[in-house]
């Protein structure tokens, strides 16, 4: 793996939460390199720190120790507004519970990141229309989330997460609230995005979903216990084929 390919470089990342008197080490000494375009499943039991890892990767949370490079830039100690800018430009979030704004239509929900980024109205309209079309939501543009099915809601959420064309897509249990068939559809969508070059990181309990990723990172008690990438003989060759 060359430096140019590396999207994410985590070195000695630690994160401790303080709950009253007790300390909880959510992450300890995490070293993780992720190349541009990888498809990674982060798995592990509840409380293993996988969500915390995802939050740090998405700059929603900051590590207490260690250094985080995103696309060659040290983002460990960015100010809150700088973090927001990086999130806006480079990171897309997909949540288990969709997190759609209930009073806004599907189109308006998809438009949110564009609006927050201050993109011009006509450009926004164009991109939203394209996104609605890409995710088969043309007929649902004016519907509110409560008028959409679970799969449609998650499609809206994915459209929203990708409308800013991020390099990094973070999905926290994306199929957790969906039945198997709809879940399958959603995963196919995510994988299609990955095939277009978006780095996809999925946090999941679901073994079957995790197994579909090309690289599995297993976590327990705040540490990485296994990483299939380190088993690969030639990492660089594997990445080059993407």
């Amino acid at each position, binding site marked *: 793996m060359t430096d140019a390919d590396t999207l994410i470089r985590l070195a000695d990342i630690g994160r401790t939460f303080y709950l009253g008197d007790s300390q909880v080490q959510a992450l300890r000494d995490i070293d993780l390199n992720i190349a541009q375009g990888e498809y990674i499943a982060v798995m592990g039991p509840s409380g293993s720190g996988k969500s915390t890892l995802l939050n740090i990767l998405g700059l*929603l949370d900051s590590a207490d120790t260690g250094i985080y490079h995103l696309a060659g830039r040290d983002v460990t100690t960015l100010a809150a507004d700088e973090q927001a800018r990086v999130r806006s430009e480079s990171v897309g979030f997909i949540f288990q519970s969709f997190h759609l704004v209930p009073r806004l239509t599907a189109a308006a929900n998809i438009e949110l990141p564009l609006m927050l980024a*201050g993109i011009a109205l006509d450009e926004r309209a164009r991109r939203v229309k394209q996104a609605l079309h890409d995710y088969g939501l043309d007929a649902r543009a004016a519907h509110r989330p409560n008028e959409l099915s679970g799969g449609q809601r998650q499609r809206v959420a994915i459209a929203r997460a990708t409308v800013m064309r991020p390099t990094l897509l973070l999905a926290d249990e994306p199929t957790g609230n969906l039945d198997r068939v709809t879940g399958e559809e959603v995963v196919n969508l995510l994988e299609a995005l990955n095939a277009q070059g978006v780095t996809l990181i999925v946090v999941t309990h679901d073994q079957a979903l995790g197994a579909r990723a090309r690289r599995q990172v297993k976590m327990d008690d705040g540490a990485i216990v296994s990483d299939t990438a380190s088993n690969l003989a030639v990492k660089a060759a594997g990445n080059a084929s993407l």
Partner: protein
Amino acid sequence: MRASDTLRFASYAAIGSPVRTLLLVLAMSIGVASVVMLTALGDGARRYVVDEFSSIGTNLVVVLPGRSETRGFNPANLVTSTPRDLTVSDAEALLRLSGVKRVAPLVVATAEVKAAGKLRESILIGTNADYAQLRNLKLSLGRFLTNTERGGSSPEVVLGALVRTELFGAHNPIGKSVRIGDRKYRVVGVLAEGGRGMGITSNDVVIVPIVSAQAMLNTNTLFRILIEANSREQINPVKARVLKTIIARHEGEEDITVIAQDAVLQTLDKILNVLTLGIAGIAAISLAVAGILVMNVMLVSVTQRTAEIGLLKALGATTDAVQQLFLFEALLLSVAGAVVGLWLGYLGSAFLRYLYPTFPAYPPLWAVLAGLSIALLAGLIFGVIPARRAARLDAIQALSKK
């Protein structure tokens, strides 16, 4: 984030919970409406009193018999009775003073007016030709009294509008004769409707020459002497000269009171302005209450929309952007309340004017502006705390809330 987007998002958020928004707008509008209406009342009272006084005439100096105060104006001055008579020759002497433009002696009494078999009790005013100009009286028919014929066999009378319609109906009364007390008068003019002053409407008066009135009432005493100064600047010099002249004519005794209408007006104006300001202050309290309500509701809204705030942050909203969203929402609610309140206030004032047509209940501009800006300020100040709370929310915890 663009300001227009912030505004749009905030307004959707407000529309998104209509009951909450309606209640808030109602609370704020009641505050603004009460400021508008109460100041309309206060300012209306001020205007009413000032109009009442200024309709007596401009640059007016009034001489009253008797003295109850050594200085300044006292309402009692207007009703004191006299120890020494004020006479027509006093009035004539005043006309010769410099700076004096017109002088009108005044006798007032009630009298029975008879014409064409109808009888009516009216206010009798005895005065001279200058009275019309002094009091800005308008005539609808004929002419006012002249100074040429004094105490002739059939002296002239000018009728108030109401007296004319009551006695003559639609008929032209000019040249007809009416009987006032035991004397016959020839109608030469009719006053236009609507004039008033000092609580006396000029609709229900009959105006006759002063000499004739004095003869009828069997008196030499004048009720007032009205003097018009040449200009506003002349009011005070004229006052001093009038006082000096009358004292000289009354054997050195200061037994009259001279009031400059201007001074009275200014004092009243000041007092009533302060009163209106006080009323506005009381009404403004309701605005502060509405502001606190805005804060409460916005705080609840922040709590309810925690997940949304977390989402916005995850999508790249800066703390400032989140803060602005909530501040704009609070402001929007306040503005909506202010606009509705303004409308309600004007409506209420119009209703007051409809109920009491003579009462000029117009809200003063300063009160309207003050009410609006206090509403906005309240929205802004009380919107800051919830907005800051929203902006400070931890994105992860916010997102983990379902």
